[in-house]
């Protein structure tokens, strides 16, 4: 089982109380990594769409600032499709975010690490980690943060589908992830064939694999080779 699956499985078995899945994920990330807090924001092409979860008050403040100001590490991470790492916000933040940086520093945030939650062009959100002291993430911590971002990506993808926020994990969330060209190509093809967005196309592909009891790569190959076609809004047969 890979690290991402382990994170998701731990979330499933933990007693989450009244907290939502994204809230539990932020709390688990903040507890597992040497950071002060973690926030999870929804993003679209237009910019921040709102806070999904925050591990503490300052994390919430950090997300609110970016939402209000329309700038900050999560905005850049989402638009650039890459992590934005500022271990010394006091040194590097000002020129980049003239409004966000002073406000964040004022609030007590000294280091920010923003990880985009994306599958190619499917932009779901950003996982923001912050620290109240400056300092870089070690390579090991960086890897762990990426694993938490992958887990968060998968959770958000399913939240976009109809999975209830506080319900049980969708069973195929726990399937191993596949980052293979055929899967992404098939996602694009299904989006056109079924006239849906890429996020929904990826869910259709995964759902089909799950219901057929086959691997997602095998189903993706059938799509790419033309042996399996999806259609708009009808029963997929």
């Amino acid at each position, binding site marked *: 089982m890979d690290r991402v699956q382990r994170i998701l499985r731990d979330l499933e078995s933990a007693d989450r109380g009244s907290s939502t899945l994204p809230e539990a994920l932020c709390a688990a990330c903040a507890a597992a990594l040497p950071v002060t807090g973690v926030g999870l924001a929804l993003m679209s092409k237009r910019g921040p769409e709102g806070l999904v979860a925050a591990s503490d008050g300052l994390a919430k403040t950090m997300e609110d600032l970016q939402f209000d100001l329309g700038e900050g590490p999560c905005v850049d991470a989402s638009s650039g499709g890459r992590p934005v790492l500022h271990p010394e916000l006091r040194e590097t933040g000002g020129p980049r975010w003239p409004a966000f940086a002073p406000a964040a520093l004022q609030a007590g945030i000294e280091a920010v690490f923003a990880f985009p939650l994306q599958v190619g062009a499917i932009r779901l959100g950003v996982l923001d980690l912050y620290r109240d002291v400056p300092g870089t993430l070690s390579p090991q911590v960086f890897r762990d943060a*990426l694993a938490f971002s992958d887990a968060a990506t998968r959770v958000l993808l399913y939240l976009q589908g109809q999975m209830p926020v506080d319900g049980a994990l969708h069973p195929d969330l726990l399937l191993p992830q596949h980052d293979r060209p055929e899967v992404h*190509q098939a996602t694009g093809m299904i*989006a056109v064939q079924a006239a849906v967005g890429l996020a929904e196309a990826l869910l259709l592909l995964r759902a089909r694999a799950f219901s057929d009891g086959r691997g997602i790569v095998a189903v993706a190959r059938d799509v790419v080779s033309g042996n399996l076609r999806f259609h708009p809004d009808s029963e997929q047969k």
Partner: protein
Amino acid sequence: MSGIIEPSTPHERPSTMVTQQRLLQAFVELADTLVADFDVIDFLHTLAATSVELLDADAAGLMLADQRGELHLLAASSEETRTLELFELQHHQGPCLDAYHQGVAVVNVDLDTAEQRWPAFGPAVRAGNFSTVHAIPMRLRDEVIGAMNLFLVRLGKLSEGDIELSQGLADIATIGLLQERAVQQQQVLAEQLQGALNSRVVIEQAKGMLAAHHDVAVPDAFAAMRTYARRTGRPLSNVAIEIIDGTLDQEQLRPS
């Protein structure tokens, strides 16, 4: 097992002079793509094709390690499923993973050796009708960021000069990936590598959309995307994004 087929007899390979001339030309072409509006994935596809040509191979791929140390295919000279499989298998084992972990070239590996060393990868090489495999590390100073992989249908051996050439090509791939100069900062390196991996996924999704739109095979859709990007002087990733968000009229990208 050796000695059954004589690899690379002189008349099969271009003369050294021609190779050097072609090499120079290739470097100029590659350098040309390194200027403004540079698209890293497009560049790496060109490099994979150039490597196949210059090193007399049949397939080439460039694999990049993510921060977890897993290798991902960024660009390949062929979209053939069996070839893609060979790259994907190397998440877990194979010459690329060895070249990546050890930071040294793994070259001239024949089928028997491959099957002994990598029980899952070796048989897939045979099934793909390849006879020889090479892997060259992509290095940035003392850090290895990935590996270049070459497959040959015939039994072939890289000479010392070929190994230097292939290392030169792998080095160019590294330079292309890390086009910003500030890579002495660990976090900039990490940002760029993750960005390149995501950029590749965007291009795969766009290939699929274009293929479904025109009802053609994925490689044809990709060729049309690249041709359009070249013709209009735009980065491949931008073209991909515009295909996905619908701002580009897909009739302009009709595969020939």
